[in-house]
């Protein structure tokens, strides 16, 4: 199986609304913007492009994305950290807002609501977000 086929397959497995939300983001422009901001070389930009695609397709998670991008690009840790923060701020959070907005908008229509993911158990600090910091010192 070719790499492109794998990516296409990954894309097919994602909900259409999500794919549309990603398309609407105009990803290349955002990547180029981050690249300009931190003066990344062409090769570093391509690597970032590639790793962001993998992250958004769910092929990698955040730590894997960070580690792989850091290893392949060989950026200094301080620059790497800033780039990772920018990816969150300029790509992932807008995607969340966009998707959340679309989701709320469509919630009044007849679009079938997909089933929620398995809720994390109470042991995850009693919140629905396992990464949220606990409010008290447990």
């Amino acid at each position: 199986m070719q790499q492109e086929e794998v990516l296409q397959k990954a894309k097919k497995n994602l909900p259409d609304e999500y794919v549309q939300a990603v398309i609407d983001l105009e990803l290349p422009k955002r990547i180029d913007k981050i690249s300009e901001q931190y003066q990344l070389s062409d090769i570093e930009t391509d690597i970032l492009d590639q790793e962001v695609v993998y992250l958004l397709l769910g092929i990698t998670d955040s730590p894997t994305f960070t580690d792989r991008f850091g290893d392949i690009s060989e950026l200094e840790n301080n620059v790497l950290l800033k780039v990772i923060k920018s990816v969150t701020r300029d790509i992932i959070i807008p995607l969340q807002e966009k998707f959340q907005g679309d989701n709320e908008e469509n919630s009044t229509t007849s679009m079938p609501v997909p089933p929620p993911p398995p809720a994390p158990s109470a042991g995850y600090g009693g919140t629905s977000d396992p990464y949220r910091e606990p409010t008290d010192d447990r």
Partner: protein
Amino acid sequence: MGFLDITVGWFFAETAQIFFNAVAWIVAQIGYLLDYTVEKMVLEMAELVNGITAIDALWSTFRDLGNIVFIGVLLYIAIRTILNVGNSFNTKRILVRLVIVALFVNFSLFASKVVIDTSNVVALQFYNSIQVEECGESACNISHFFADVTNISSVQSPEALEALENEGSEEGANFKILIARVMGIVFLAVVGFVMAAMAFLLLIRFGFLILLMIASPLAFIAFVLPGTSDMGQKWLHNLFNQSFFAPILFAMVYVVAVLGAELANGLGGNGDLMAAILDPDGDNYGVILTFALMTFLMAYTLVVAKQMGGWVTQKSMQVGVKARNWTGAKVVGATAAGVRATAGRGGQKASESRGLKDAASDENRNAVTRFGARAALKLSDKAANSSFDMRNTRAGKAAGVDDGKQRSSGFRQVVEEKAEKRKEEKGMIERLSPEEKAKVERAKIKQEQADKSLEKAEKEIKKLEKEAKTRYEDAKENAQAQYDRVKNTVEEAQQQTNNELTDVTNNLKQVSSAIKKRAELGDKLAAARSSGDRRLEERIAARLNALTDDIDGVSNLEDLDTKQNDLQDRKSDLESRKETLQRRRNTVQNAYNDRKSQARNVYTDERDELKTKREVAKESTKKFKKKMDNVINVGNKRGEGFVETMLEQQSTLDKIAGFAGYKFDTTQSRANRDFALENIGDIKSKDEDSAGRTAKDRASSKLRNIYNT
């Protein structure tokens, strides 16, 4: 001449009857023998064997004998090693086997009993399935099943004999009875032979298995000694072959039972065997054919059971060899790890011992002490570096415990690797800010909480599973109780109807006979009147009047016809009621089956749902823990600021997944993910393709286009 024929015919018929009775008695005894054999030597074999103390005593004797043989073999190995005679590889191989067998020989009786008991339990399941429903006053046994399936009891049919006697010619009747008896003897002998063969084979099985149990220590020893492993294999082969003969036999009999019922219906073979012999017309051939077919099938089950027993043995032994290799590899691996941690650790300490090093280099000590200290240091150094993994040796390979997963490094190397890892981790953690260290600690606490939460969820799921099972058992019991109640009522009604039907049929026969005789006597009376024989006329008139004496509710000859009509009507009603009751019984049975299956389906659904919940909880916890591990590891590697950034990023991605109603990591199969990760590593390659594009260009182009296709 006619008188002579009748007398000779009567003589042969009566002689045949005597032989027939004798053969029937013998077949009955064979049936009892078969029942006893099955009950005592298969179904209750465990109790019987436990009661025979001689088995344990003899087994102990053989085991002790085996232990003496072990000592002899050990001495043999020792002498070979000391004298350096023969192939050292073979010696090591025998030693490994000797140690294993010396340990397991003590469980040889237990192991044999496990195989035998397992086969008997399986046999019991099939035996319970082949029971017949009604066997008169005695308990239902396999001989009843034989009688039922071959319909052999109908070879002696009073109804058929009565019909023959009423037929007319005594001379012809005697001849037919003679034929029926001879054929009956043949049929009985065939059935008796099959039952006897079955009883004999089961009897042989019992005796053979007892001998195999007693000889089990010797068989184990035979596996070790050179040139005797064939005997051990033969013992194992016989153990499996004999043990599984019984369950396979009963399984085959069960198949014949199910098949036979259908065949009998199809061929019309449910009638009287004797009636079929007496009157072999087209309709009755089905009865004889069914008998022949069923007898053949029953006999053939014996042949198939013997053959399949051999097949099961072969397969079981193949599985056993695979299991032995796997288990051996794991046991040896675990042992090696244990020895590394003990002997290896001891060796490491000894090799670093200041006292030994001083003793080895101290010129003031005598030569023997210095030599001893040097030897001890050398040995301990070897122990510290050795993996102790027998799978690396030729003997280990010979013993079949090489699974390709053996360690080559010794205790010293393991200690060094661990120290290096700890040092690395410590260095990384020191690069984190105090806040991030706190976050890492919290992440670890969250992981522990996730485990506890999973444990709690599993407990809850177990409780729910138990409740579901209890509900299922209750539903089954309720269905059974209700079924039993209704079934009993229907059966009582059926019994009552059958009794009444028998009475009515008998009455009807009596009335019909009276009507027939009335006609005959009427003719005779008319003849007597015309001849003017007054005395004969009076006698016949008296016989005519006596015809109604034994018939209830009939006072004169004219009422006989009315009575016959009434009885026929009543008989039709009762037959119709009988059919209705049978239908009712079938309905009740079907309803019961439906309820049971419904309860089972509900239970299965509930159980599956809970199983899915458990898997989801496990998977969710596992993924969460893995992500946290990744965050911690990458955070440690990269330094300050990364942990927080990754936590925030992953949290946002998970929120998106939550909105979209999917999980990122469930969209990809592991194989695809691994493939994709492998392929993006070449992005920095400078190799160009024919169009002058690098791998990076090609990858970038594909990635950039991914959302546009």
